[in-house]
Protein backbone atom coordinates (compact mmCIF):
# COMPACT_ATOMS: atom_id res chain seq x y z
CA UNK A 1 0.00 0.00 0.00
CA UNK A 2 1.36 3.43 -0.91
CA UNK A 3 1.84 6.08 1.77
CA UNK A 4 -0.93 8.23 0.31
CA UNK A 5 -3.40 5.37 0.12
CA UNK A 6 -2.55 4.32 3.67
CA UNK A 7 -3.14 7.85 4.96
CA UNK A 8 -6.43 8.12 3.06
CA UNK A 9 -7.72 4.91 4.60
CA UNK A 10 -6.44 5.92 8.01
CA UNK A 11 -8.26 9.24 7.69
CA UNK A 12 -11.52 7.42 6.97
CA UNK A 13 -11.04 5.05 9.88
CA UNK A 14 -10.00 7.80 12.32
CA UNK A 15 -13.12 9.90 11.77
CA UNK A 16 -15.12 8.16 14.58
CA UNK A 17 -12.43 9.24 17.06
CA UNK A 18 -13.84 12.76 17.06
CA UNK A 19 -15.08 13.64 20.53
CA UNK A 20 -18.86 13.96 20.58
CA UNK A 21 -19.63 14.42 24.28
CA UNK A 22 -23.09 13.81 25.67
CA UNK A 23 -26.44 15.04 24.33
CA UNK A 24 -26.39 18.12 26.54
CA UNK A 25 -22.90 19.29 25.66
CA UNK A 26 -23.96 22.16 23.40
CA UNK A 27 -26.67 23.31 25.81
CA UNK A 28 -24.29 23.15 28.75
CA UNK A 29 -21.56 25.15 27.04
CA UNK A 30 -24.08 27.73 25.80
CA UNK A 31 -25.45 28.16 29.33
CA UNK A 32 -21.98 28.53 30.84
CA UNK A 33 -20.93 31.08 28.23
CA UNK A 34 -24.19 33.01 28.59
CA UNK A 35 -23.76 33.17 32.35
CA UNK A 36 -20.18 34.37 32.11
CA UNK A 37 -20.76 37.09 29.53
CA UNK A 38 -23.88 38.33 31.33
CA UNK A 39 -22.11 38.56 34.68
CA UNK A 40 -21.24 42.19 35.51
CA UNK A 41 -17.61 42.90 36.22
CA UNK A 42 -16.62 43.01 39.88
CA UNK A 43 -15.14 46.18 41.38
CA UNK A 44 -11.77 44.46 41.51
CA UNK A 45 -11.92 43.59 37.79
CA UNK A 46 -12.92 47.15 36.91
CA UNK A 47 -10.08 48.53 39.01
CA UNK A 48 -7.60 46.17 37.41
CA UNK A 49 -8.83 47.20 33.96
CA UNK A 50 -8.36 50.89 34.79
CA UNK A 51 -5.18 50.58 36.84
CA UNK A 52 -3.22 48.36 34.49
CA UNK A 53 -2.54 50.99 31.78
CA UNK A 54 -1.98 53.63 34.46
CA UNK A 55 0.54 51.44 36.27
CA UNK A 56 2.32 50.71 33.00
CA UNK A 57 2.59 54.45 32.20
CA UNK A 58 3.93 55.27 35.69
CA UNK A 59 6.45 52.42 35.46
CA UNK A 60 7.64 53.64 32.06
CA UNK A 61 7.96 57.21 33.39
CA UNK A 62 9.92 56.06 36.44
CA UNK A 63 12.25 54.02 34.28
CA UNK A 64 12.88 56.98 31.98
CA UNK A 65 13.57 59.32 34.92
CA UNK A 66 15.91 56.78 36.57
CA UNK A 67 17.84 56.21 33.35
CA UNK A 68 18.02 59.95 32.71
CA UNK A 69 19.33 60.69 36.22
CA UNK A 70 21.89 57.90 36.03
CA UNK A 71 23.13 59.14 32.69
CA UNK A 72 23.38 62.74 33.94
CA UNK A 73 25.24 61.70 37.09
CA UNK A 74 27.71 59.59 35.14
CA UNK A 75 28.53 62.47 32.83
CA UNK A 76 28.96 64.97 35.68
CA UNK A 77 31.12 62.79 37.90
CA UNK A 78 34.61 63.71 36.55
CA UNK A 79 34.01 67.47 37.00
CA UNK A 80 32.48 67.00 40.44
CA UNK A 81 35.33 64.84 41.69
CA UNK A 82 37.92 67.36 40.48
CA UNK A 83 36.25 70.31 42.19
CA UNK A 84 35.40 68.52 45.41
CA UNK A 85 38.85 66.88 45.78
CA UNK A 86 41.51 69.42 44.88
CA UNK A 87 44.96 67.93 44.33
CA UNK A 88 47.49 68.89 46.98
CA UNK A 89 51.21 68.32 46.67
CA UNK A 90 53.49 68.61 49.68
CA UNK A 91 57.15 69.37 48.94
CA UNK A 92 59.91 70.45 51.34
CA UNK A 93 57.41 71.44 54.02
CA UNK A 94 55.35 73.51 51.65
CA UNK A 95 51.91 72.46 50.38
CA UNK A 96 50.85 73.37 46.85
CA UNK A 97 47.28 73.04 45.67
CA UNK A 98 46.12 72.43 42.11
CA UNK A 99 42.58 73.51 41.24
Amino acid at each position, binding site marked *: *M*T*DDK*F*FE*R*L*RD*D*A*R*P*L*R*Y*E*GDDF*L*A*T*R*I*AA*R*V*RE*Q*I*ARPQTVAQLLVAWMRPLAASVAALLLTVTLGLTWTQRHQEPTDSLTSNPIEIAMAGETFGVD
Partner: protein
Amino acid sequence: MNVSLTWGRVLHEPAPRAEWERLTQDDPFEGRAIEAVRRGDAGSYDYLVSKYSKRVVSIAWGIVRNAHDAEDLAQEAFVKAFQNIGRFKEGEPFGPWIYRIVTNLALDVVKHRSRFRHEELTDVQPAARRDDAELGAVTSELATRIDQAIESLPENQRVVARFYLVEQFDHAEIASMMGLSEGTVRSHLSLARKKLKEQLADLYGASDD
Protein backbone atom coordinates in the same frame (compact mmCIF):
# COMPACT_ATOMS: atom_id res chain seq x y z
CA MET B 1 -30.37 33.04 -8.94
CA ASN B 2 -28.40 30.05 -7.80
CA VAL B 3 -26.50 30.00 -11.05
CA SER B 4 -25.45 33.62 -10.78
CA LEU B 5 -24.40 33.11 -7.16
CA THR B 6 -22.28 30.16 -8.13
CA TRP B 7 -20.66 32.08 -10.97
CA GLY B 8 -20.09 35.02 -8.66
CA ARG B 9 -18.20 32.76 -6.31
CA VAL B 10 -16.18 31.24 -9.08
CA LEU B 11 -15.18 34.65 -10.39
CA HIS B 12 -14.40 36.23 -7.07
CA GLU B 13 -12.91 33.27 -5.26
CA PRO B 14 -11.12 31.04 -7.71
CA ALA B 15 -9.13 29.23 -5.01
CA PRO B 16 -10.82 26.08 -3.68
CA ARG B 17 -12.19 26.58 -0.19
CA ALA B 18 -12.53 24.07 2.60
CA GLU B 19 -15.94 22.58 3.12
CA TRP B 20 -16.48 23.97 6.60
CA GLU B 21 -15.38 27.44 5.56
CA ARG B 22 -17.81 27.37 2.65
CA LEU B 23 -20.57 26.20 4.97
CA THR B 24 -20.00 29.02 7.44
CA GLN B 25 -20.00 31.61 4.69
CA ASP B 26 -23.18 30.15 3.26
CA ASP B 27 -24.97 30.54 6.56
CA PRO B 28 -26.75 33.90 6.51
CA PHE B 29 -27.74 33.56 10.18
CA GLU B 30 -24.11 33.46 11.23
CA GLY B 31 -23.29 36.81 9.67
CA ARG B 32 -26.39 38.36 11.19
CA ALA B 33 -25.60 36.91 14.61
CA ILE B 34 -22.07 38.37 14.48
CA GLU B 35 -23.41 41.76 13.47
CA ALA B 36 -25.99 41.69 16.27
CA VAL B 37 -23.35 40.77 18.86
CA ARG B 38 -21.15 43.61 17.64
CA ARG B 39 -24.07 45.99 18.13
CA GLY B 40 -24.35 44.80 21.75
CA ASP B 41 -26.98 42.07 21.50
CA ALA B 42 -25.31 39.38 23.62
CA GLY B 43 -28.30 37.04 23.18
CA SER B 44 -27.39 36.52 19.52
CA TYR B 45 -24.12 34.96 20.60
CA ASP B 46 -26.10 31.84 21.59
CA TYR B 47 -26.46 30.94 17.93
CA LEU B 48 -22.70 30.91 17.38
CA VAL B 49 -22.00 28.99 20.59
CA SER B 50 -24.63 26.37 19.80
CA LYS B 51 -23.37 25.97 16.25
CA TYR B 52 -19.69 25.55 17.09
CA SER B 53 -19.52 24.24 20.65
CA LYS B 54 -19.33 20.51 19.81
CA ARG B 55 -16.52 21.01 17.34
CA VAL B 56 -14.67 23.40 19.64
CA VAL B 57 -14.84 20.92 22.54
CA SER B 58 -13.68 18.13 20.23
CA ILE B 59 -10.65 20.17 19.12
CA ALA B 60 -9.75 20.98 22.73
CA TRP B 61 -10.28 17.38 23.83
CA GLY B 62 -7.99 16.14 21.06
CA ILE B 63 -5.19 18.24 22.53
CA VAL B 64 -5.75 18.03 26.30
CA ARG B 65 -7.45 14.59 26.35
CA ASN B 66 -9.68 15.41 29.26
CA ALA B 67 -13.42 16.12 28.94
CA HIS B 68 -13.62 18.50 31.89
CA ASP B 69 -10.64 20.57 30.73
CA ALA B 70 -11.94 20.54 27.15
CA GLU B 71 -15.29 22.03 28.20
CA ASP B 72 -13.57 24.65 30.35
CA LEU B 73 -11.35 25.58 27.41
CA ALA B 74 -14.31 25.78 25.05
CA GLN B 75 -16.08 28.11 27.47
CA GLU B 76 -12.96 30.26 27.84
CA ALA B 77 -12.51 30.42 24.06
CA PHE B 78 -16.11 31.54 23.47
CA VAL B 79 -15.89 34.19 26.19
CA LYS B 80 -12.59 35.44 24.78
CA ALA B 81 -14.07 35.60 21.27
CA PHE B 82 -17.09 37.49 22.61
CA GLN B 83 -14.90 40.03 24.39
CA ASN B 84 -12.87 40.57 21.21
CA ILE B 85 -15.73 40.47 18.70
CA GLY B 86 -14.91 44.08 17.75
CA ARG B 87 -11.62 42.86 16.26
CA PHE B 88 -13.34 40.18 14.20
CA LYS B 89 -13.14 40.91 10.48
CA GLU B 90 -16.51 41.48 8.88
CA GLY B 91 -17.54 38.85 6.36
CA GLU B 92 -15.09 36.25 7.65
CA PRO B 93 -16.41 32.90 8.88
CA PHE B 94 -16.51 32.54 12.65
CA GLY B 95 -15.32 28.90 12.65
CA PRO B 96 -11.61 29.34 11.87
CA TRP B 97 -11.38 32.16 14.39
CA ILE B 98 -12.87 30.24 17.33
CA TYR B 99 -10.91 27.11 16.35
CA ARG B 100 -7.69 29.12 16.42
CA ILE B 101 -8.51 30.58 19.83
CA VAL B 102 -9.32 27.22 21.41
CA THR B 103 -6.25 25.60 19.83
CA ASN B 104 -3.96 28.24 21.35
CA LEU B 105 -5.59 27.90 24.75
CA ALA B 106 -5.36 24.10 24.67
CA LEU B 107 -1.71 24.14 23.54
CA ASP B 108 -0.90 26.47 26.44
CA VAL B 109 -2.50 24.01 28.86
CA VAL B 110 -0.46 21.13 27.43
CA LYS B 111 2.76 23.17 27.65
CA HIS B 112 2.02 24.11 31.23
CA ARG B 113 1.12 20.52 32.03
CA SER B 114 4.35 19.12 30.59
CA ARG B 115 6.39 21.62 32.63
CA PHE B 116 4.40 20.71 35.71
CA ARG B 117 4.75 16.96 35.13
CA HIS B 118 8.52 17.23 35.35
CA GLU B 119 8.12 18.59 38.84
CA GLU B 120 5.16 16.58 40.11
CA LEU B 121 5.29 13.10 38.69
CA THR B 122 2.41 11.93 40.85
CA ASP B 123 -0.06 13.81 38.65
CA VAL B 124 0.72 11.68 35.61
CA GLN B 125 -1.14 8.56 36.70
CA PRO B 126 -4.57 10.06 37.44
CA ALA B 127 -4.42 11.95 34.12
CA ALA B 128 -3.66 8.77 32.23
CA ARG B 129 -6.52 6.96 33.95
CA ARG B 130 -8.96 9.72 32.99
CA ASP B 131 -7.87 9.47 29.34
CA ASP B 132 -8.49 5.73 29.30
CA ALA B 133 -11.92 6.14 30.86
CA GLU B 134 -12.94 8.66 28.21
CA LEU B 135 -11.69 6.40 25.48
CA GLY B 136 -14.16 3.80 26.72
CA ALA B 137 -16.74 5.50 24.53
CA VAL B 138 -14.79 4.38 21.48
CA THR B 139 -15.96 0.83 20.96
CA SER B 140 -14.17 -0.08 17.76
CA GLU B 141 -10.91 -1.89 18.28
CA LEU B 142 -9.52 -0.39 15.09
CA ALA B 143 -10.33 3.13 16.29
CA THR B 144 -8.70 2.40 19.64
CA ARG B 145 -5.51 1.20 17.95
CA ILE B 146 -5.43 4.29 15.75
CA ASP B 147 -6.01 6.52 18.76
CA GLN B 148 -3.17 4.91 20.69
CA ALA B 149 -0.85 5.23 17.71
CA ILE B 150 -1.65 8.93 17.30
CA GLU B 151 -1.17 9.52 21.04
CA SER B 152 2.28 7.94 20.93
CA LEU B 153 3.56 10.60 18.50
CA PRO B 154 5.67 13.58 19.63
CA GLU B 155 3.56 16.60 20.64
CA ASN B 156 3.47 18.64 17.40
CA GLN B 157 3.05 15.59 15.19
CA ARG B 158 0.31 14.31 17.48
CA VAL B 159 -1.74 17.51 17.30
CA VAL B 160 -1.24 17.95 13.55
CA ALA B 161 -2.10 14.29 12.88
CA ARG B 162 -5.21 14.50 15.04
CA PHE B 163 -6.40 17.66 13.29
CA TYR B 164 -5.82 16.06 9.88
CA LEU B 165 -7.03 12.53 10.53
CA VAL B 166 -9.71 12.90 13.18
CA GLU B 167 -10.98 16.47 12.77
CA GLN B 168 -10.57 16.26 8.98
CA PHE B 169 -9.02 19.71 8.57
CA ASP B 170 -6.79 20.34 5.57
CA HIS B 171 -3.17 21.57 5.62
CA ALA B 172 -4.02 25.26 5.27
CA GLU B 173 -6.60 25.13 8.05
CA ILE B 174 -4.20 23.38 10.42
CA ALA B 175 -1.46 25.87 9.59
CA SER B 176 -3.78 28.76 10.38
CA MET B 177 -5.03 27.21 13.62
CA MET B 178 -1.57 26.40 14.95
CA GLY B 179 0.26 29.44 13.63
CA LEU B 180 2.58 27.30 11.51
CA SER B 181 3.49 27.42 7.84
CA GLU B 182 1.86 24.92 5.51
CA GLY B 183 5.29 23.45 4.84
CA THR B 184 5.82 22.76 8.53
CA VAL B 185 2.40 21.13 8.77
CA ARG B 186 3.21 18.90 5.78
CA SER B 187 6.55 17.99 7.33
CA HIS B 188 4.93 17.04 10.68
CA LEU B 189 2.31 15.02 8.84
CA SER B 190 4.90 13.23 6.75
CA LEU B 191 6.84 12.18 9.86
CA ALA B 192 3.62 11.17 11.60
CA ARG B 193 2.51 9.12 8.59
CA LYS B 194 5.77 7.19 8.58
CA LYS B 195 5.51 6.37 12.28
CA LEU B 196 1.82 5.52 12.10
CA LYS B 197 2.40 3.22 9.14
CA GLU B 198 5.02 1.32 11.12
CA GLN B 199 2.82 1.08 14.20
CA LEU B 200 -0.28 0.02 12.31
CA ALA B 201 1.47 -2.27 9.84
CA ASP B 202 -0.47 -5.31 11.06
CA LEU B 203 -3.76 -3.55 10.26
CA TYR B 204 -2.94 -1.84 6.98
CA GLY B 205 -0.02 -3.86 5.65
CA ALA B 206 3.52 -2.53 5.43
CA SER B 207 4.36 -3.26 1.80
CA ASP B 208 4.51 -0.41 -0.72
CA ASP B 209 2.86 -2.27 -3.61
